[in-house]
C-alpha cells in the first residue's frame, strides 16, 4: 500500500529526513520553516530510528554542530531561512573546505536584512555562487512541490556523500507552508558503517587524521583547491538536472525554478490556448546549472524570459548560458511577492513577443 499524506512542505522534508536514515538534525526556530524542527521533535525520531534532533542556541551553533556531526561521518542536516542561512555561511565554507557531507535546507523569505516572512528566491546567488568565502561550490537543488521536498532530501544526502560536499535544498516559504499530497518511500535504515575518513576514534590500526580546512602553505592550499575544482567539474558533468515542460516546437522560452516554475507552468498553458508557442525550462539543480541545455535551444528561439521572485539573479546564469546569442528579458517580484500566471504572460508578450 502506498504511503500518501497531505502535508506542509516543511513537514514533508522533516518526515523525509527520518525516512532517509538521517542521523541528526540541528536547528533553530525561524519563520517560515520552524515546522521542520517542530515536526521532527513531535515525531520522536530517537524512538523511530535513533535520529537525534537538537534545538541549538543560534544558527551559528547549528552549522558548527553540523560540522562536528558531519566529521563523524553521520548523515546530518539543518534547515533555516535567509537570515539564519546567512549566519551559517562561515561554517558552510569550512565544511566545503574540509570536504564533509551535509544537507542544508533554505526556506527562503523576502530580504535583505530581516525582510519579511513571505516567500522569495532572493538567496539564489548566495546559494549558487558561494555565499561564504573562498572558492567552493554547493550542490543546489530547487524543489517545486511538496512531493519534491520529500524526494530531493534523499537525493541530497546521496549527492553529499558521493562528492563529500555540502548540498543545499533551496526552497521558499510558499512550498514550505503549502499543503499538498505527498507519497513517501520506505524507511531507509541509518548507516552502520562509517566512511573511512570519519572521526570514529584513533585505534592502533588507523592513521592519524585531522579534519581541517586550514592549509597554511600556499602551494599545498593551491593543490587542495585544484582537487576541489576537479570535483566541481565532475559534478557539473554528472549532476545537471532540469525539467522541460511543453518545449516541442516553440518560439519562446520561459526559464524559472521552484515556486516560480509552478506559476510559469500555468502561464505556458494559457499561452498555448492563445496560440503562443512558448515552453518552460525548470532548472532542478541550480548548481550545476543547465547551461548546455539552454545554450542548445537558443538557435531555434526568438526570445527568453526569465521569471524569478527576486531582482534577477538566475538571470545572470541564463545570460551566461545564452552567451549573447539571444536577448534575455526578465520579470520578477521582490520582497515576498509572488507573480501571477497572467502577469508573467503579459511580461512575455510585452518584453519578448511584441519586440519582434
Amino acid at each position, binding site marked *: 500500500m502506498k504511503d500518501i499524506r497531505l502535508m506542509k512542505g516543511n513537514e514533508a522534508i522533516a518526515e523525509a529526513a527520518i525516512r532517509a536514515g538521517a542521523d541528526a538534525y540541528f536547528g*533553530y*526556530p*525561524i*519563520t517560515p520553516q*520552524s515546522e521542520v*524542527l*517542530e515536526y521532527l*521533535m*513531535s515525531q*520522536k525520531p530517537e524512538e523511530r530510528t535513533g535520529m537525534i534532533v537538537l*534545538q541549538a*542556541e*543560534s*544558527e*551559528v551553533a547549528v552549522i558548527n554542530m553540523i560540522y562536528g556531526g558531519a566529521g563523524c561521518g553521520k548523515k546530518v542536516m539543518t534547515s533555516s531561512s535567509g*537570515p539564519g542561512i546567512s549566519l551559517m555561511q562561515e561554517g558552510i565554507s569550512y565544511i566545503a573546505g574540509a570536504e564533509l557531507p551535509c544537507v542544508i535546507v533554505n526556506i527562503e523569505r523576502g530580504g535583505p*536584512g*530581516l525582510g519579511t516572512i513571505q516567500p522569495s528566491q532572493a538567496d539564489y546567488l548566495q546559494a549558487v555562487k558561494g555565499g561564504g568565502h573562498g572558492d567552493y561550490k554547493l550542490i543546489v537543488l530547487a524543489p517545486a512541490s511538496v512531493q519534491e521536498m520529500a524526494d530531493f532530501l534523499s537525493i541530497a544526502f546521496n549527492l553529499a556523500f558521493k562528492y563529500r560536499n555540502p548540498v543545499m535544498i533551496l526552497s521558499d516559504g510558499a512550498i514550505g507552508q503549502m499543503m499538498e499530497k505527498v507519497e513517501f518511500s520506505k524507511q531507509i535504515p541509518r548507516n552502520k558503517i562509517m566512511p573511512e575518513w570519519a572521526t570514529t576514534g584513533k585505534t592502533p590500526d588507523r592513521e592519524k587524521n585531522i579534519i581541517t580546512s586550514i592549509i597554511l602553505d600556499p602551494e599545498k592550499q593551491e593543490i587542495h583547491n585544484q582537487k576541489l575544482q576537479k570535483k566541481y567539474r565532475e559534478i557539473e558533468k554528472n549532476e545537471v538536472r532540469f525539467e522541460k515542460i511543453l518545449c516541442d516546437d516553440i518560439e519562446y522560452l520561459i526559464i524559472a525554478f521552484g515556486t516560480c516554475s509552478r506559476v510559469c507552468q500555468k502561464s505556458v498553458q494559457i499561452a498555448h490556448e492563445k496560440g503562443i508557442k512558448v515552453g518552460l525550462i525548470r532548472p532542478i539543480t541550480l548548481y550545476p546549472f543547465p547551461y548546455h541545455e539552454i545554450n542548445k535551444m537558443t538557435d531555434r528561439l526568438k526570445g527568453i524570459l526569465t521569471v524569478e521572485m527576486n531582482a534577477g539573479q538566475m538571470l545572470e546564469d541564463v545570460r551566461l548560458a545564452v552567451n549573447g546569442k539571444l536577448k534575455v528579458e526578465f520579470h520578477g517580484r521582490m520582497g515576498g511577492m509572488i507573480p501571477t500566471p497572467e502577469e508573467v504572460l503579459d511580461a512575455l508578450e510585452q518584453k519578448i513577443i511584441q519586440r519582434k
Partner: protein
Amino acid sequence: MNIETEELELSYKDYKLDQPVKWCPGCGGHAVLSAVQKALPETGIEKEKVVFVSGIGCSSRFPYYINTYGFHSLHGRGAAIASGIKVANPNLSVWLVTGDGDSMAIGGNHFIHILRRNINVNILLFNNKIYGLTKGQYSPTTPLGSITKTSPDGTIESPFLPGELAMGAQGTFYARVVDTDPKMIKDVLVEAANHKGTSLVEILQNCIIFNNQVHSEITGKEVREDNQIYLEHGKPMIFGKNRDKGIIQVGQKFLVAKIGENGVRKEDILIHDAHNPDDTRHYMLSRMSLPDYPVAMGVIRACKSNVYEDMLHKQISLSKTREKVKNVNELLKSGNVFNIQ
C-alpha cells in the same frame, strides 16, 4: 535683551505614540511600555537624546511604540549595536530592549561583553521564558522539563539565570522586576537610568499565548507578598504579607527566618547593600528561588566602576595632549622628509 523662556516638563504623553501596539492583548509588554513612558520623564534626560535599540523577538518591537529614536536591529546583536551607538555618541541615553531568546541564546556573547566593558547602556530584558515570535519553542531560560513545541517530552537543558550571567560578566547593575507591578518597574528604571555603566533590568514577563502563567507563582495576587522580596539599598531584607519574614545569613547560606521565632530579632535580618563591589551576596540574592526562598526583586546590585566610554575618551584626550603632531600639515612634515631640488 532678556528672553523669557518657559521650562517645559516632560510627561509620559511625550513618549506615547498613536501607533497601534502589535503585542497580543494581555501581553506583559504593555505594562512595561507604559512604565517606561512614565519613568523617562522622571530621569531628567532630554527626550531628544533617548535612543531605543532592540534585536529580534516580540519585545524587540518596542522601538516602534515609543516616541524616541529607534533601532530595530539583528537577532541577538542589539548589545553590540547599542555599544557602538554609545561609544560613537556618548551624549545619547541608550536603551536596549531584548528578550530571553535574543540576549540569552544567539546574543549571549554580546550580552556578556557589554556588561564586562560596563558601557553606559540600560538593558531591559523581557524574560517570558519562551520564544514568542516564532510561536512557542523553548528558550535558554525555559525551566527544566518544560513541554513546548520543540520539547514534547520536556526540556533537558538547565536554564540560564540572567542575574547569574550578569555577575559572572562583572556587571555593575542588576535589578529584577515583574510585569504586574508597573510602579516597581518605573522606580527601578529610574535607578537604572541614573546608574553609570551597564544596567541590566530583568523583567519577569508573561506570554499569554505561549507560556501563560509562567511567573504566576511569583506574581499571583495571593502569593506575591510571600513569594517576592523587594530589596532596597540600606533597608532590611524583610518580606511577607505580615512583614514578619526576613533573610538571615547562617554560615555560607541565606535562610528565611520569621521575626520573633527561634530567637530571631529584627536586628538579625540582613541589610541590603546594593552598592558593595563584592558581588557574593548579590549573586546569592539573584539565585534565590521558590519554594525555599522568595524571589528577589528591585535593585540587587548597583556598584561604581569604570565606564568604558569615559575611559576611552579619556585615553583619546590624553593621547592628544602627548602627541607632538597636532594637525595634518605637521603630520606630513614629520619623520623623514626631504626637499626636491
